């Protein structure tokens, strides 16, 4: 009960103009509000109550808008901002000209995290990598990663290089979400068993709010390596259309003479997609299988649930 009552934060921070709003809009399928671009010199704070992995709330902060103003705000509101943080995602703009200042703000955030939420996970995204020439991307990213690792001690930070124009953003956020799901290894083994029992070609597990693929099982090689991102994009577009009609998306079945695909709610944090290439298996059979599997997986989550909250209370 306590884990649901306690809202933990995911902080998305970075310099203004580093791409946080676009990133959040793309990952969570929100419309970009015009007003956030007009705020100019004021601090851009967004509290979006996106139910992300159960009880996480995403907060978006601009760092380094105007120096003196930022310093004052940081010192006076620090505890408020940095308490109860589960995840810190810091976005660096790769083509920023003020590396010293960026690192300085990053370190201030880390200090505040150490004081208020020492068990938070830290991720650093080096963003807008598409603006760097291809042959130099690895080099630049490696340098940045070394610097960030060094600066982040004693906290451990995981670094990703991202760009909204290739698959790196999707993969980075999928990895982040993968590390945040409490019992993901167990989910994966059970998923494989489930897929083999129902004779599915492929089974995907999506995170509920963002439709990022966190785990998948496939029984043979598939042609398109980018299919996960494409499916996520298509479903998010459909969710946008549904929300225009004040409807919510729950499940979908796509069927033709060659395959049948089922997308449905699975556990409290996840959606499942099952692809069957044997058209002789009736839909009802697969749907019953999914329903029974759901009960099993929910039990798995509940088993881990109290244990999870217990360890959190003990910190």
């Amino acid at each position, binding site marked *: 009960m306590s884990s649901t009552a306690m809202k933990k934060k995911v902080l998305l921070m970075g310099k203004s103009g580093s*791409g946080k*709003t676009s990133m959040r809009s793309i990952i969570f399928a929100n419309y*970009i509000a015009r007003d956030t*671009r007009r705020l100019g010199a004021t601090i851009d704070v967004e509290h979006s109550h996106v139910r992300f992995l159960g009880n996480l709330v995403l907060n978006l902060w601009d760092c380094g808008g105007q120096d003196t103003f930022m310093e004052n705000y940081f010192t006076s509101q620090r505890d408020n901002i940095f308490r109860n943080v589960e995840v810190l995602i810091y976005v660096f703009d*790769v083509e920023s000209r003020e590396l010293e200042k960026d690192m300085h703000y990053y370190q201030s955030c880390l200090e505040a995290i150490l004081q208020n939420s020492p068990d938070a996970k830290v991720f650093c995204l080096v963003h807008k990598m598409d*603006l760097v020439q291809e042959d130099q991307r690895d*080099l630049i990213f490696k340098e940045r990663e070394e610097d960030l690792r060094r600066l982040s001690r004693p906290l451990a930070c995981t670094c990703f290089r991202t760009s909204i124009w290739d698959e790196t953003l999707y993969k980075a956020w999928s990895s982040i979400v993968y590390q945040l799901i409490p019992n993901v290894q167990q989910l994966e083994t059970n998923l494989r068993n489930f897929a083999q029992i129902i004779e599915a070609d492929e089974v995907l597990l999506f995170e509920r709010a963002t439709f990022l693929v966190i785990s998948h099982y496939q029984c043979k090689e598939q042609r398109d390596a980018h299919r996960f991102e494409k499916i996520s994009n298509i479903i998010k577009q459909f969710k946008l259309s549904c929300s225009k009609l004040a409807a919510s998306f729950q499940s979908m079945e796509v069927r033709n003479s*060659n395959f049948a695909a089922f997308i449905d709610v699975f556990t409290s944090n996840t959606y499942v997609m099952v692809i069957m290439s044997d058209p002789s298996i009736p839909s009802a059979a697969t749907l019953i299988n999914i329903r029974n599997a759901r009960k099993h997986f929910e039990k798995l989550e509940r088993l881990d649930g109290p244990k999870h909250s217990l360890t959190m209370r003990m910190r």
Partner: protein
Amino acid sequence: MEEDSKPLLDSVRRESYTDRGSTDSLDRRRPFHVEHRNIVEDDPSERVSAEASVLSSRVHYYSRLTASSDRLLSPPDHVIPCPEEIYVYSPLGMAFKVTGGDGGSKKGIPPLSFAIWNTMMGTSILSIPWGIKQAGFTLGIILLISMGLLTLYCCLRVLKSPKSIPYVDTSDWEFPDVCKYYFGKFGQWSSLLFSMVSLIGAMVVYWVLMSNFLFNTGKFIYNYAHNVSMSDTEFGTNGSERVICPFPDTGDHGGNCSSGISALYLSSSNNNNYYYYGNDTSGTALFDRWWSKTNTIPFYLIILLLPLLNFRSASFFARFTFLGTISVVYLIILVTLKAIRLGFHLEFHWLDSTHFYVPEFRLLFPQLTGVLTLAFFIHNCIITLMKSNKHQENKVRDLSVAYLLVGLTYLYVGVLIFAAFPSPPLSKDCIEPNFLDNFPSSDVLVFVARTCLLFQMTTVYPLLGYLVRVQVMSQVFGKHYPSP
């Protein structure tokens, strides 16, 4: 560490950062579209690379997240695959390669100019011949050109006005915001008031014209069905190309009425005094009572238009803008045909008026300038229309081309109708403020024009009503669609 990374970053392709969050590089993005692949067939010939396919999926998704005029999430040129990898699929199933080269210098009319021409072309085109008649032929042409240049200059100033405001981000300001900045509350309310005046004026004109067209359409259908001929009752030319003069007796009725609208009503009130030769005289008298241009039709229009005005959003009607283009093109063709068939009748009397002709310079020219200010009016939405164009020189060029096209269209229609008006039997003074009124109801070509225009106005009227409603409701109630 920092010195090592700086030279590497300097070789990066980039544009200067003007406003935060903007990754605009060039003002013209290369177009990019990928056909959906059939995922089930084993297609051996891979026409689309995997990167292009997934980029297309991303572009589709990102375009749903922002407004269409927002360039924040549109792909910069360097992520789009090079032209060699792009194929264009024709509906016949063939695919051919894009031949490369960007959409740099386009020959012909830029598409933005055409959009502006489409928006500006309104019902004023029907009044230009009358306006030229009121000012005199030569003076009319001179005024048309100079008013066009004057309104173009004003429009350019309106376009440049947000840029000259320092320290403020004016990227989504419209002209009333600029007025508010310079003149405070007075500026905001006065610009709203004048915008209302032009919108409501346009709605009144539309109502009058729609009554006119509906009346004539009904009359044509009735006369055709009941075989009624009206040729002996209206004063006009004889022969196959009939041109009528609804006001033969009031010689200089341009001096009596001061505005085009009252002239429209004056001409229409005459229509009730016709005598008919036909089979069913009592039936036609009854028809005339119930189908009268001034007494009943404006009320029938309420039944037609009131449901359309109550739509919450006007986006449905915005799809019919192509009707306007078709109507204007048809009018141009109609005018050309009539001019060819009627021939030119021009005589130049400089300052004295004769029975059939008007002087070249008349004192009534302010009526033409009045018509022209509304004919060339687009200042309230020009900033929004030209938002897609980033470079200032392109905006100036596109706007000038648009005004040139509009001016040429008006000039063509005005001069041809004025010159082709058959003056020996009829006086040039007979040209009506709506030049379609100079043709009898039985003229088929003109009947088609009236029907087209009626359809087009029925689709534009709810848009005008929506604009008025939005502006008034948001000022008075604070919401666009106040509901309990």
